[in-house]
């Protein structure tokens, strides 16, 4: 397996949607390729960081204000 072939399956590996046979091939490539191992680990970390940090928070006061406005309009029939 080449690095390009590994990369083409990177998302499927991260999303855990590969067959056991394909996974075995990918793991074999990883054992001999530090480049792809770093790419896999840091890409996983990238997703994890964005998933676990709310970079656009909705502050409670703004949330309540928007919420009240929406429901008031709905009650009037929009």
């Amino acid at each position, binding site marked *: 397996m080449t*690095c*390009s072939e590994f*990369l083409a399956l*990177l*998302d499927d590996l*991260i*999303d855990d949607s590969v067959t056991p046979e394909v996974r075995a091939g990918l793991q074999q490539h990883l054992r001999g390729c*530090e*480049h792809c191992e*770093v*790419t896999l*680990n*840091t*890409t996983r*970390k*990238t*997703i994890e*960081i*964005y*998933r676990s*940090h*709310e*970079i*656009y928070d*909705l502050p409670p006061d*703004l*949330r309540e204000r*928007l*919420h009240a*406005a*929406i*429901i008031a*309009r*709905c*009650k009037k029939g*929009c």
Partner: protein
Amino acid sequence: MSTIQPIAGELEPHPDVALVDRVRGGDVSAYDELVRKYDRQIFRIAQHITQNREDAEDVMQDAFLKAYEKLDQFQGNSKFYTWLVRIAVNESLMRLRKRRTGKMVSIDEDIETEEGSVPRDLADWAPDPEQNYGQAELNEILRKTIQGLPQGFRIVFVLRDVEGLSTDETAETLGLSIPAVKSRLLRARLQLRERLSRYFRRKKVGEK
């Protein structure tokens, strides 16, 4: 008002189905519950697309109001949340168009057609690299980095990886094919990874 059917093939109907039915029966408090359940996600998606706080506020209101108005058109063959996200994405793109005085805005904007290549930056990252930064500084890095992505990649990454939609749901929401979603997701992930390496890579001995 008609009663919506649960999604085919699912044994248990999604809890939103009952809430939507109650709203259709005239119970606004059920809509209150739906808004509270999804308002943060809709606000985040709107911010990611418009990159503007005021626009995101407007989009959030407009998306929930439009969903309420059009609830009769919701068929129940997709999740309420996915349907709501589609409305919010469209509202966000419309808002961008207004800001750009009518210039067309699409999710294909800035997309390069070349296929993903093997990443250049080989640097490994420090263990738990985010801990080297304060919360505010880290948020700024993450914001700046994702804002630099082409819009068509950014939306796919946000829906799929941040908000947890499936590949199928992301494709349906954005009107893209599944291969297009997969290709954009890979490019988005790799570009973000490469950009974040600037901040998170393991420092060499003696390097500041």
